[in-house]
Structures are given as structure tokens and as C-alpha cells.
């Protein structure tokens, strides 16, 4: 099986600060990969490189076998095939919930307004927010906003969904509703790469867990192995701190 998304030896530095030191990662179709690791380990930067929001210094990112880090590639065309959800939701505050969701389908993918609207309403219905479609994002709770952001990313029918610590900004009681939606999306076969601090969730949903440390993938494998019986001492150290904090 060929990988939908493949990262090969990606290096990324911000000035003196080298964040990624040669990351390799392959994500097969319908698989869920969880990126774990301390803050500053490079999880978010890796996702930003994969979604072409950052330019890699070295290495390649392949989407369906095509090198998307090639400077000759039309980055806008590549981003159309990706769905990204951010930690801080990043909904557009001046647009209604419905307009947030239909914006890309209509403006980028050229679908008709009515078709996009229908599809968006169906998606919103599924997450129980159809009645909020006319509201502005700041009238919604954090959990509702993040679920709309997921729907917004799904509305473009992406090849792969990149989730960047999407529950880190949420109140604990709102985390559940967002993770439930992610699980549903994963069960329907969406290919997902997610940076997360929710180890319990990674354990249940991910097919592969990758532990990033100081800009490299130190260890990766099935969640039971990486989270339950890690080989690397640094992974053990990280997990024991997580366990101490009561997060696993």
C-alpha cells in the first residue's frame, strides 16, 4: 500500500533554532497517526510543513506520491487537498458558521452555492449544530467552534486531515465532544495525522503513535507498544511525566 502522506528527512529551522532535524513519517490511507511529544518537540511544525504553511529547509513531503515541497508545485492547489484544524479553531469571526463552512467549497472548489450549502448543513446537522448555522463563531462555545472547524476542514473532502493539538485550548469538559467527532471521522475512513496531548485518545483511535523528541521521530509503532512498553528511555521519561500529571 502506498502512503497518502509521506515525510522524508524534513529539516526546518527558525533562525538558529532547528526544530525538525530530519523527520520521516509515512501515513497510509484510512490510517490515523498520532504525533506525541513535549512542547517544542516539533509536532506542530511538522504539521505546518506538511500543510505548506511553512517552507521546509530540507527533505520532502509527498502527497499521493507527488513531492509537494518542490518549489514548482502550486502550493494553493496542494492545500486544496488537505484539511487542517488548529489549536485555536481559527474560524473567521466575521462570517457566519455556515459561511465559514461553505467558503472553501464555493470559492476554491467552485461548487455551487446551493450544493455547498446543502452539504454544509448536512455536516452541521451531523454534529448537532445545524441550528447554529446562522450564528457568528463568537456566540459558540469552544467545543462547538472546534467542531465547526473540523467540519469546515471536512467540507473540502480532503485527502488527509491534519489536526494540530485541537483540544489543547478547550475546557476539559468540552474535550469529549471534539474527540467523539474525530473518532467518528476516523471510523468513516478519513486519513488523519494529529498532534495531541490526549494520550488516552491516541491509544484508542490511532493506528500508529509517533514520539517526537528534539526534532526527530524517536520511536513509532502501535499505540500499545509506544505508549505501553516504549523502547527508548526518553519516551519512557516523557510518558512517566504524563502519567504523573494524570493524563494517561
Amino acid at each position: 500500500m502506498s502512503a497518502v502522506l509521506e515525510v522524508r528527512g524534513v529539516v526546518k529551522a527558525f533562525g538558529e533554532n532547528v526544530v525538525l532535524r530530519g523527520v520521516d513519517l509515512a501515513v497510509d490511507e484510512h490510517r490515523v497517526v498520532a504525533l506525541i511529544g513535549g512542547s517544542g518537540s516539533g509536532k506542530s511544525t511538522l504539521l505546518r510543513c506538511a500543510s505548506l504553511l511553512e517552507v521546509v529547509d530540507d527533505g520532502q513531503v509527498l502527497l499521493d506520491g507527488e513531492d509537494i515541497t518542490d518549489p514548482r508545485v502550486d502550493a494553493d492547489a496542494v492545500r486544496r487537498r488537505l484539511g487542517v484544524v488548529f489549536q485555536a479553531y481559527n474560524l473567521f469571526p466575521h462570517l457566519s458558521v455556515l459561511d465559514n463552512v461553505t467558503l472553501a467549497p464555493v470559492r476554491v472548489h467552485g461548487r455551487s452555492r446551493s450544493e455547498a450549502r446543502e452539504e454544509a448543513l448536512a455536516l452541521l446537522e451531523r454534529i448537532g449544530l445545524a441550528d447554529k448555522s446562522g450564528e457568528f463563531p463568537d456566540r459558540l462555545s469552544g467545543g462547538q467552534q472546534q467542531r465547526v472547524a473540523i467540519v469546515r476542514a471536512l467540507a473540502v473532502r480532503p485527502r488527509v486531515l491534519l489536526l494540530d493539538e485541537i483540544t489543547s485550548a478547550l475546557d476539559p469538559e468540552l474535550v469529549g465532544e471534539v474527540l467523539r467527532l474525530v473518532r467518528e471521522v476516523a471510523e468513516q475512513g478519513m486519513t488523519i495525522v494529529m498532534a495531541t496531548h490526549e494520550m488516552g485518545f491516541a491509544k484508542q483511535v490511532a493506528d500508529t503513535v509517533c514520539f517526537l523528541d528534539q526534532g526527530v521521530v524517536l520511536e513509532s509503532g502501535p499505540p500499545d507498544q509506544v505508549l505501553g512498553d516504549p523502547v527508548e528511555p526518553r519516551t519512557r521519561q516523557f510518558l512517566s511525566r504524563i502519567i504523573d500529571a494524570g493524563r494517561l
Partner: protein
Amino acid sequence: MVAYLVVTRSPGWPRVQTTFFSLEFGRESFLPILRGLWVNVQVLLIGGVCVVVLGLGLAVLRTLRGPAFAPLRILATGYVDLFRGMPLIITLYLVGFGLPALRLQGVPNSPFVLGTAAIVLTYSAYVAEVFRAGIESVHPSQRAAARSLGLTHRQMMRIVVLPQAVRNVTPALLNDFVALQKDVGLISVLGAVDAVRAAQILVGQSFNFTPYVVAGLLFVLLAVPSARIADAVSARARRRQQSGSVL
């Protein structure tokens, strides 16, 4: 109250009252000045639209990122530095008297057109900076979200960044609009018969200064509605940002 008493009891008051506040001259000068004010209003409306368009364009150029756009950025920055630093009256003289003196084909020599152009040059530099502040006030995460959806840079600016930027700076823009309302009176230095010039002519004929007071009051009346609109917009922006807070 104190000021009123001091003024009305000053030894020169009776004289000042007849030369500045003569009802008779006021009535006589009212219509010619009002006709002149219509010229100011035209400059204000036409100039205002041009200022917004040009200012927005300059701001977009100044906020372009990446080395490829450096020449455009430098040009826009130079423009803003030049016309924001240059006193408006000097710009008016240079454009109003210098341009026609070149005797280039197609350059109009109407003081109305040249005066409006000079005002647009100066004010667009100011307004460009207001818009730029607005564009930069939109959080970078909004750009990231827009681009990650596949929007092009242009679509991102038009659909996501500029609407939020303009909303953020509307109070500041309206403030500049109120300032512009007075400064349109400066086209009189080029000889356009606006409210100020009309008053000047009447003063020259009668040696009575009441027409200036009439013109001044008319400008104030013109400014009051925009000032109130600016207040209302600022208040609404405040309410949106801190819903419920009384601080």
C-alpha cells in the same frame, strides 16, 4: 460662562461684535458661502472615495511579504513617508501651481481638480497607515486558516483579512474623515471658490469678518454628524469586544 463674561466685558467687545457677529452681514453672506460649501462637499465626497481606494491599495502593497515584493513595498513606503511628512499646504501649492506650470498635455488646471488631487495625495498616505495597522491587527492564524483551505493570497486578503481589518479601524478612519472635512477648505488657496474663498471675497468687499464666522459655523455643522457617527461606531466596536464589561 467665565469665558463668555470675560469676552463680552472686554473693552474691544462692541467693536468685535459688529465686525465679527453682525446679523446683517451674516444673512447676506449666508447663501454665497453655502454655495461655496457645496464645492467643499463635492471635494470631500470625491476625495474621500479616492483616499479610501488609494490608501487601501498602498496598505496592501506595504503589507506584502516576501523578497519578491520588496520594490513595491519600498515604493509604497516612500510614498507614505513623502506625503505624510509634507505639509498639506505645500503639497497644495506644488500640485496646484507646479503641475499646470509644466504645461503638459491633458493636465487639468482647474483648482477644484488639482486641489482634490493634492488632498488625496496627503490623506491617502495617512489612511494607508490606518489600513496597514488594521491589516496587521488581524491575527496570523486567520491567514493560516485561510491559506490552509486553499484560498489564494488575493482571496485571503479580500475575503478574510480586509473585512476584519476595516472593521478594526473604522473608528480611526472616521476620525480621519472628520479631519478631511475641515481640510477641504484649504483648496481655497488655489483659488477655488469654496466656502472659505467665498467668505474671503465677502470680507474683502465689506471689511466685515462675519462671513468667516458663518463659514466656520457651517463647517462645524458639517462635521457634527460624522463625529457622532464616529462615536457610535467606536462604542459599538467596544461593546463587541468586551460584551457586558463596564470597565
